[in-house]
């Protein structure tokens, strides 16, 4: 279980409060208007932002003081998920061997398998700039699978893709998260994404992250803030 206990975080006049628990494994959408604090919440979980108060725990262990690389968390950002000057293979190799060193035969196979599963086997020697947006997204997803962390944070990672491709990637993501038995948090501003992907949904609005509710339920009976956001 991932818990945000009395979190207060923010900067320059903006503040996010969060006090909630998330069961793992599971798929959770984080939805809300721009600037409400969705990304801030993810940064706090990933360790890119230290909260002003409160703590983040995973299975009861306090993560608050750990650097990002040492948390049981893998993140897919909006962009820049791969180093542009390294090939796809080299990027994935880094995920397995972040402290350097030669890959073992077994690790090579894992990378090959991850590329294979994403349909990227032929492209492993290419750099991110030389593949399509969808292929780069899949490579980034392959990277996350190799990192094999129990919590996955996804900060609108497919926002730049077309609807069909995005739907495909979300399905892929759901499959991967299921296989890894991970807790996946997907930040999105699109209710359709939330419905398609998430079992539960967190609404972040006006600087407060509300505890998760069943996705179907929250859209059937939206709270005031969500109703304003949806324009319904």
């Amino acid at each position: 279980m991932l818990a945000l206990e009395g979190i207060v975080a923010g900067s320059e006049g903006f503040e996010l409060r969060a006090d909630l628990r998330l069961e793992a494994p599971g798929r959770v959408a984080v939805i809300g208007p721009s600037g409400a604090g969705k990304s801030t919440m993810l940064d706090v979980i990933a360790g890119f932002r230290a909260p002003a108060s409160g703590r983040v725990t995973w299975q009861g262990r306090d993560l608050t003081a750990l650097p990002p690389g040492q948390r049981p968390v893998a993140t897919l950002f909006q962009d820049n998920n791969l180093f542009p000057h390294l090939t796809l293979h080299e990027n994935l190799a880094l995920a397995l061997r972040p402290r350097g060193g030669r890959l073992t035969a077994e690790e090579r196979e894992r990378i090959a398998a991850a590329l294979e599963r994403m349909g990227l086997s032929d492209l492993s020697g290419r750099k991110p700039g030389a593949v399509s947006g969808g292929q780069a997204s899949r490579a980034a997803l392959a990277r996350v699978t190799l990192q094999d962390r129990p919590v996955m944070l996804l900060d609108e990672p497919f926002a730049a893709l077309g609807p069909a491709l995005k739907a495909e990637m979300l399905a892929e993501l759901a499959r991967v998260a299921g296989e890894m038995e991970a807790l996946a948090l997907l930040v999105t501003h699109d209710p359709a994404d939330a419905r398609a992907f998430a079992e539960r949904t967190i609404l972040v609005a006006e600087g407060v992250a509300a505890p998760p509710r069943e996705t179907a339920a929250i859209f059937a009976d939206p709270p005031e803030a969500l109703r304003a956001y949806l324009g319904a």
Partner: protein
Amino acid sequence: MAQRAVALGAGALVAALALGPVAAVLWRAGGFGAFAPGDGQALRFTLWQAALSAALSVALAVPVARALARRDFPGRSLLVALLGAPFILPVIVAVLGLIAVFGNSGIVNGALEALGLPGITIYGAHGVIVAHVFFNLPLATRMILQGWLALPGERLRLAAELGLGPREVFRVVEWPMLRRIAPQAAAVIFVICLSSFAVALTLGGGPRATTVELAIYQAMRFDFDLGRAAMLACLQLALALAAGLVALRLSGAAGMGAGLDRVVPRWDAARRSARALDAAAIALAALFLLTPLALVAWNGVPGLADLGWPVWRAAGQSLGVALASTALCLLWALPLATRWGEVMGLLGIAISPLVLGTGLFVIVRPYVNPVALALPVTALVNALMALPFALRILRPEAEAIRTDFARLSAALGLSGRVWVTRILLPRLRRPLGFAAGLTAALSMGDLGVIALFADPERATLPLQVYRLMGSYRMEAAQGAALLLLALSLGLFWGFDRGGRNAGA
């Protein structure tokens, strides 16, 4: 395509100013002179010391720049400004400062003696290298620091997310940046050291440390052999251009791509070993660079009281020259902040100041009294000589801005003027501030070409320092040197700070 025309014009002006005087000297001499017997040895020593000085300065600058890039501590900005000081000191003052530390009666030998240990000597080939590293380590540090600060935060964030270790962060994130920045920094330092002369001679301990520039000086001032001076100057130019081209090739690798300027702390820097390493790098660099400065300052205090009106007047004139040079240099540098522009810019420091001054004298003399132009010419030449540094600082970021925003700007249909005033300049503020500070300080400290033109009324502060020394007034000279140091640092700090605040 007005921008292209401006760039071409700026480049042509550099070439004309650097090559015109050589041509004028050649014309006056009626042709090239001949090589002398000692020239081969002088050339070998020149190349050897310049290459080694450049390599060492850059290699040592890497840990210092990294430490400064990822640590914040009280007094950091003051330290960064002070670290720039050796580079902008008049040569003679800096040499006396170094000798006060490493000389036979310096504090290092004093301490060794007190401990009963054998002394060291600064005089010899190693002394030349130590001095050149002293002068150029700060420059290399600042150039590389600039590169570090320009690393896209996204890359560091991704590295942290992956939990990359220090070795991997270096290989994946930092090395590609260094591969671009370091060869250019080394080329600039190599070219500076090519024309070293008084430092090399004094610390080299004798004629073994003869450089090509000394031969030029001898030909120009002593033998009045203009043909030989012009020939040696062309040799120096060719070496500098070769260095520039090699650096251009080496640094041709692709950039790191665009970042979004998010300020991201360095998560890889938290471990204790990294902290200790950074602290050691900063402390050692500060000790090495600041102790001689502190002694210059300390020795200068008693002389401050002796400074008369002539020194203060010269200080005012130097300030005016420095500000004019700065404005001119930045106007010049903006259109030239490209790959080829940077190679062109090297011409500015590659050309021997003596030949430059003499050539300008020959050129302007038929039209105006050169003495009346002493200060404007000094400002112009100082701008030319600071150009390579300004370009080195501005180019990486100017290019990044061009690649990152060219499409967006084209889509918006921005005019050249709007592009420069709304996109280029605001985004360049930080390096512009640094470049302006460096130019102003360099111009304060540089003797440039004034020796041939100067008259009693139009002296710069460094010239007054030499005049005081030449009239036995060593104490007052040290006071004036302290004043010079303070003014140079003040200008540097002010501009640099302005740029950084605006960028924050």
